[in-house]
């Protein structure tokens, strides 16, 4: 019983601390300023829409950039304007979110990059 609880606790700890699989900080120092709580997904017609949400944990208004690389089912990148860097700003100690819609009905996978 004791081993089971310990295993469960360890698993929760690992899952909780793991980086979100579809989001990558280009500069690791960003993780000291903002957190990523998750990525929501939904369908808008035949296109997938994603929304990244988190919180600015620093005491400063900050400016970042993000880009979303969309890929088809075979892993090939689908070129689009969303793969260019887009600015976003976050107010101090407040939640933030930004979203992106798939550039094509063939886009099923995505990778989000965040940089300063």
């Amino acid at each position, binding site marked *: 019983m004791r081993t089971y609880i310990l295993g469960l606790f360890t698993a929760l700890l690992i899952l909780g601390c793991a980086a979100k699989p579809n989001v990558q900080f280009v500069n690791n120092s960003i993780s000291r300023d903002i957190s990523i709580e998750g990525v929501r997904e939904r369908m*808008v017609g035949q296109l997938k829409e994603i929304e990244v949400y988190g919180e600015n944990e620093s005491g400063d208004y900050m400016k970042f950039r993000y880009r979303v690389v969309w890929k088809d089912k075979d892993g090939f990148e689908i070129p689009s304007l969303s793969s260019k860097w*887009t600015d976003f700003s976050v107010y101090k100690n407040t939640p933030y979110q930004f979203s992106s819609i798939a550039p094509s009905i063939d886009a099923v996978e995505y990778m989000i990059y965040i940089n300063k």
Partner: protein
Amino acid sequence: MRTSTIAASFAMATLLITGCADKTQRIDMNQDKAGQVMGLDYRDFNEAAGKAIQSLLKSGALNKKDGDRVVIAISKITNDTMQHIDTDQLIKKIRVDLLRSGRAVVTTSIGAEGNVDAMNKQVRELNESEDYNPRTTVPKGKLIAPEMSLSGKIIQRNISMDDGKQQVEYYFQLTLTELKTGLAWWEDETIIGKRGSGKSVAW
């Protein structure tokens, strides 16, 4: 002897001048950290087009019940700025992404000047010519009429500030109209503001 001395001096001066001149560099379009300009550059068009296409796709205005693609005509895009810009710098990016999206296709048979391919009409005139094999000419009734029209305007406002600086505001406004009803199904505006020296020229 004197001529050769002058020639040598001239060659030396030329080498010095070209050697000291700034070398031309190619811009890295993916990571351009060069300073901003008061006018519009490719970064501004990328931003405005990127936001517009995201907004348009999210709006659902291009979602047809049968899943088919919407046929769009490009209407007038007015350049109401002080700059000599070709509005295709904005519209072409949107057109490319619209086509890639699989949700829309743009007709070049009808539209505002610059967005029509004259060959659509010329190729139909071949029907009257006996020189062409009728089986290779385009039969009547094959053109697809547009269902929607994309129109817009780019506006510039220059504002002199109290501290002598200049503020330039650019408004990228776009409208998608359903041609059957005349109703605007999607509209959006992106504002890009710049502030700099009052001596800067924004045209």
